[in-house]
């Protein structure tokens, strides 16, 4: 049994740069922080068999994804001395060049936030039930698979 409802991580459409800037700005009031490590996933305009990816449309099994993310968050906080960590993932359509994942870890010293951010990104990609449908310029599509 979870003690509280898992935190939401999903946003409709892309994560916009000004939101990231605002998010960074808010952390200036926490003067115990010495380092921030941020990862941003951006949709690539890949060419696959002559077709260009113009967007990725993300879907999820939301309840399961949020519970899983809560588990990941708890194990990351147990492992690293973090001040805070924020995760945002897009749902719906995100165009090439736009951002679909924003992971933001902060700590007093740099090693913890850098390691925590990287490990969280890897676990998000491997463990969260999220699917990306690559939309081509000829209106066909293909389902992405994480390496």
């Amino acid at each position: 049994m979870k003690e509280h409802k898992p935190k939401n991580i999903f946003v409709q459409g892309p994560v916009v740069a000004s939101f990231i800037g605002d998010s960074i700005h808010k952390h200036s009031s926490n003067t115990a922080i010495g380092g921030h490590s941020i990862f941003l996933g951006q949709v690539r305009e890949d060419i696959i068999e002559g077709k260009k990816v113009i967007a990725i449309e993300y879907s999820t099994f939301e309840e399961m994804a949020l519970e899983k993310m809560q588990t990941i968050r708890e194990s990351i906080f147990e492992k690293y001395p973090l001040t805070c960590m924020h995760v945002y993932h897009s749902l719906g359509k995100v165009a090439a060049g736009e951002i679909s994942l924003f992971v933001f870890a902060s700590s007093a010293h740099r090693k913890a936030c850098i390691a925590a951010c990287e490990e969280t990104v890897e676990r998000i990609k491997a463990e969260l039930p999220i699917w990306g449908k690559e939309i081509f310029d000829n209106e066909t599509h293909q389902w992405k698979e994480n390496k």
Partner: protein
Amino acid sequence: MQITILFFGQLTDITGMASIQLEDITDTDALALLLHQKFPALASSKYVMAVDKKVINSSTLLTNNCTVALLPPFSGG
């Protein structure tokens, strides 16, 4: 006994639907068999099953009002 089956990602291209309600299925092996008959392309698709949001590794008994999700390989991020 009522069971809800959820399909995600590329599996919805095969099923043409996001969910289906089924009745009186003993376990996940029996469910897989039934779904593969109903949607033959599922049999050659990669997926794992989650019963009430927990991924299972071996056949699992189904209970009334449980939810079984068919999860193809993840591709978030």
